[in-house]
């Protein structure tokens, strides 16, 4: 049968689509991905070594400094990677990846990089303004990004939506506008974003990788289903029975997960809902250091390269100090 004509594109954003479009390859990947519920607990070194590769299209799931997979990001910085393509919203995590001299960043698909009340990220400013992102910065909004991930999660190659149109965010992004074949309204289509790998920090997981998250979920649901490989760090590893007793609390079922790393205070210096508050002293210290190249490098040496792993990092920050960050039951 002859192929029917495609929807006519009215406008097309110039942002480069640096990942494989379409959904069939992702369905095949998902079919072939082992489903056996086995023990997936790994050390952070092994988890990053095995599941984050040169050239990966990588995202970190977080909101601001909340529930950020910082222990995994620091390990990735220690190991280094070539030609990383970073996706999503970023704060302290993305700053470290951009500042890290062992990581070469090829492109960024970003919604927001900054520190909210504390302003623009000086590290990102230097990286972009000095042209250190080898290819380009592709613009997104939070809604278009979460729906592009949702498209992958739904197993469809794109989703229609009513954002971006008419702006430069559209022009420097990957979306198109078309006429709706049902209503004749003009809609924006965002392509499914299929990640090579995502790093996610959760409240608790069992050894099989079944994850529960306290607090608002941000991008977690969509992003965990839009990635070929999912590396999870968790505040605590709990018994499988505890997860099975409350299956409705599972946000990420274990068969999606490739590795689970136990990382108490894994979001430090960021916070964790229902667990601990942000360590403003370390965070503000970072923001101060980030103002200069030398300061940034000194911070990286102390908190990233200078520690062997997350355990050593917690020793460096101080266990007593960390305990004082813990939230009360009703907070």
């Amino acid at each position: 049968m002859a192929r029917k004509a495609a929807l006519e594109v009215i406008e097309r954003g110039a942002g480069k689509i640096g990942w494989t479009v379409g959904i069939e390859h992702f369905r095949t990947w998902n079919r072939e991905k082992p489903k056996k519920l086995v023990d997936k607990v790994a050390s952070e070194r092994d988890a990053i070594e095995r599941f984050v590769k040169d050239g990966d299209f990588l995202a970190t799931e977080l909101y601001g400094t909340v529930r950020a997979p910082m222990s995994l990001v620091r390990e990735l910085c220690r190991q280094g990677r070539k030609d990383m393509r970073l996706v999503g919203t970023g704060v302290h995590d993305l700053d470290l990846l951009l500042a890290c001299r062992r990581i070469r960043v090829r492109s960024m698909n970003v919604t927001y990089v900054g520190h909210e009340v504390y302003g623009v990220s000086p590290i990102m400013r230097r990286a972009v303004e000095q042209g250190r992102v080898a290819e380009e910065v592709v613009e997104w909004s939070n809604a278009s990004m979460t729906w592009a991930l949702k498209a992958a999660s739904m197993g469809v190659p794109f989703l229609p939506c009513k954002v971006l149109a008419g702006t430069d965010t559209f022009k420097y992004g990957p979306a198109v506008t078309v006429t709706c074949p049902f209503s004749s309204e003009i809609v924006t289509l965002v392509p499914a974003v299929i990640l090579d790998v995502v790093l996610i920090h959760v409240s608790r997981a069992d050894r099989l990788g079944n994850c529960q998250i306290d607090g608002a979920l941000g991008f977690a649901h969509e992003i965990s289903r839009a990635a070929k490989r999912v590396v999870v760090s968790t505040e605590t590893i709990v018994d499988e029975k505890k997860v099975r007793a409350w299956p409705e609390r599972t946000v990420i079922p274990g068969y999606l997960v490739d590795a689970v790393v136990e990382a108490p205070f894994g979001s430090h210096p960021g916070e964790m809902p229902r667990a601990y508050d942000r360590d403003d002293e370390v965070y503000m210290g970072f923001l101060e250091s980030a103002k200069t190249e030398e300061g940034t490098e000194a911070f990286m040496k102390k908190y990233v390269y200078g520690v062997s792993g997350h355990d050593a990092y917690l020793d460096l920050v101080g266990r007593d100090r960390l305990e004082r960050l813990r939230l009360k039951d009703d907070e």
Partner: protein
Amino acid sequence: MTMAINYNPTELLICMASRLIEDNTTAFVGTGIPMLAVMVAQRRHAPGLIPIFEFGGTGAILETLPRQVGDRHTYHQAISASWMADIMETAQRGCIEYGFLGGAQIDPYGNLNSTVIGPHAKPKVRLPGSGGANDVGSLCWRTIAIMRHGRQRFVPKCDFVTTPGYLDGPGARERVGLPAGTGPYRVVSDLGIMDYEPGSLRMRLVATSPGITAKKVLDETGFELLLAPSIEQIQPPEKDELLILREIDKDKLYI
């Protein structure tokens, strides 16, 4: 007559924005000054306001000033804590009345820039990017931009349009496919309040801040600002507004 109480321009800005917020409706709240405006409103005249934060917080009782749109205070005793897609879909199906926006630049049609100063490929200044701003500007029924006034900020043309206002004039939003009937509603600056002239959809001065003349506002605006038939004088912040505000921002993050 009540005793006058001193206030700074940021405090005035927050109080002005706060007074625009109605009770018993929904508002999409971003980081910073909008949070303060909404908190003052919630405590003072809009206890039934449902503040909505993009990472999932809906209907929080805002006791502590959130430092981020995703921190736990954005869903403190909330009616729901969901996720990004749910909140954006809520806005997209028309449930969110007000949205707050800010940026480095605003143009006569209320288009906003928070992405780059200079060319995109080689920017002079790289700013954070859209975040949820484009979505708020696309989907909320009425958006309120909160800006510091000045010729560098109120510009004839934004270096980059991150977030849609009325784009290039009447009918433009609908032509490109943005939801019908949505768009910029007010601009609140330290110098006054602007709306958009119904015919041209260009920004128009409707009220000036205490002690500020219309001429001063025009001088501080980098494009031809229209004037409403009658320009109102904004009342200075009242004592109770200021006390509430200072209690909320006791660490003086903003004020």
